[in-house]
């Protein structure tokens, strides 16, 4: 059988075909002209840049089909510089392709190992120079150099310390506590149940004790979305139902998948959508995940009203908000 297999002869390298410009003087002239045209276009590009800078007002806008209203000066500068650089490159390539010698040269790789004589010479030189520098005699230099180099080596250890410390309880806690008032973000006004109509939403944060500054880290953990629907639309167990107030339900806005702000609320379907990875949560079923990569429902905040009728948290979040992390207990 094996003898039946047709054997191909190695065709070798293709024959070197010379370019027209190599043997036809007219073609070479034409190629030269082409290269020159490319370089001249580049020069015109630079002139466009300079002209735009000096002669176009920085407040002039022109309309271009795809770009829309565009600042004419910036466009001229950018396009001019782009053309100038691009066409120098194009001209150089065209030059190399058509006119520069196209003889094919095979360069063999040399051996990696240096020749024995070079190696011996190197060792001799190092030995001689080390002796001349007097490292053996000048012990003060040797020691202080050792100190300097050693300390530099330690510096990454100090910098790497910033990778720690471990977050401890920081990721598991928020500023929501029993009795914390819900205040509107960003106005900071407290909110009453009757302020929210059915079908309305509000972005809220916990009221911080007087004198406490609200940081972005706080907002990143504390942000809560307040939604009011008809109470009969809830499909919750008794405990979760007791966490709502007159149809108002509160969820952490931080997605349990990657921590994006989940606030795309569709009031007809009662779905909450995360814009990052399309995790969809059903508000009527305690933010149960009905689509997307999120593994857990959004944590629900238990709410009630205080003696003045303002909405307050009944208790803090019962689980860590946001995405999973190593130390997360549940």
């Amino acid at each position, binding site marked *: 059988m094996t003898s039946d297999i047709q054997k191909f002869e190695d065709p070798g390298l293709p024959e070197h075909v010379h370019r027209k410009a190599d043997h036809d003087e007219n073609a070479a002239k034409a190629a030269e002209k082409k290269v020159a045209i490319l370089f001249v276009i580049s020069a015109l590009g630079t002139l466009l840049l300079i002209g735009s800078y000096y002669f176009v007002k920085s407040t002039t806008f022109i309309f271009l089909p*795809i*770009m*829309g*209203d565009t600042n004419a000066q910036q466009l001229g500068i950018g396009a001019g510089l782009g053309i100038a650089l691009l066409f120098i490159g194009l001209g150089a390539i065209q030059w190399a*392709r058509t006119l520069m010698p196209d003889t094919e040269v095979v360069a063999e790789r040399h051996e990696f190992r240096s020749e024995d004589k070079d190696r011996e010479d190197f060792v001799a030189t190092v030995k001689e120079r080390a002796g001349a520098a007097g490292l053996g005699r000048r012990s003060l230099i040797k020691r202080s150099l050792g100190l300097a180099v050693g300390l530099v080596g330690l510096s990454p250890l100090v910098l790497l310390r910033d990778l720690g410390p471990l977050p401890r309880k920081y990721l598991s806690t928020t500023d929501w506590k029993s009795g914390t008032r819900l205040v509107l973000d*960003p106005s900071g006004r407290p*909110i009453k149940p009757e302020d929210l109509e059915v*079908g309305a939403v509000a972005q809220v944060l916990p009221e911080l004790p007087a004198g406490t500054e609200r940081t972005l880290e706080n907002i990143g953990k504390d942000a809560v979305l307040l939604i009011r629907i008809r109470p009969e639309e809830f499909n919750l167990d008794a405990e979760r139902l007791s966490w709502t107030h007159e149809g108002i339900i509160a969820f952490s806005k931080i997605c349990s998948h990657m921590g994006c702000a989940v606030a795309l609320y*569709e009031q007809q379907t009662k779905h909450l959508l995360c814009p990052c990875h*399309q995790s969809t949560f059903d508000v009527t079923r305690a933010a149960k995940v009905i689509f997307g990569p999120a593994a857990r429902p959004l944590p629900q905040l238990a709410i009630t009203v205080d003696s003045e009728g303002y909405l307050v948290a009944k208790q803090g979040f019962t689980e860590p908000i946001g995405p999973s992390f190593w130390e997360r207990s549940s």
Partner: protein
Amino acid sequence: MTSGIKKLSRYRRHRWAAPALLVVALIGLGTTFSVASEAPAAQNVAVTQQSSQITEGKRIFLQGCSSCHGLNAEGGAIAPSLIGVGAAAVDFQVGTGRMPMADMSQQAMRKKPVYDAVQTAALAAYVASLAPGPQAVDPTSLNYERDGNTAQGGTLFRNNCAMCHNFAAQGGALTLGKYAPTLMGVDPKYIYEAMITGPQSMPKFSDKTISPAEKLSIIKWIKAAQSEPSLGGASLGRVGPVTEGLLAWTLGLGLLIGIAVWLASKAR
């Protein structure tokens, strides 16, 4: 037909075939983009009052709306009840052409209004007569340029609106084909009415959580965003990294690939 394709096919290995295809593809992309990003023209509707408005409104309702919303606006399997939605909701839905719906797709789209201003006002008066609800907004009362605060509006917008309508109010996608429309070129009256009525997927933003003055600030910010010149060149729809990436990967890489092919080809 086949001869045409054969003719074309003869050129498929032509040295200009690949660059020509690339240019055609890029022009196609650009054209699609520019057509898609054209903002619909704004409209202005003047509202006039009539004595027999409610009767007239009921007549129009029975003719044009009752097949879905019920003979008494009580709603049905495919359409919500309109009792208590108020004149503002009617003014928004009919005035922007969303109602009556052209087809039962995911979402009522903004289109050329079917009813004129007088008919819309009559319909609104009829629906408002069924039960109290938010009143239609008088455009002259919205002096957002005087009463609004752009910076405050921007903060409120980013907190309450940007997640659906995009950080530059260009609109964005929701679930299952629904979307938050762009706010560019929308009449301030309709922006205000949308906030108080919560049309379709949009929730309501009560006056107690976002006060009327704050709503004017939001409108002022939207208008400021709309007239913001694009100093950095093409805004690419102001939707962020998606179009920028698309353009860089198709146009930028396409160009680089073209140059690489040209570099490696043998000159004749």
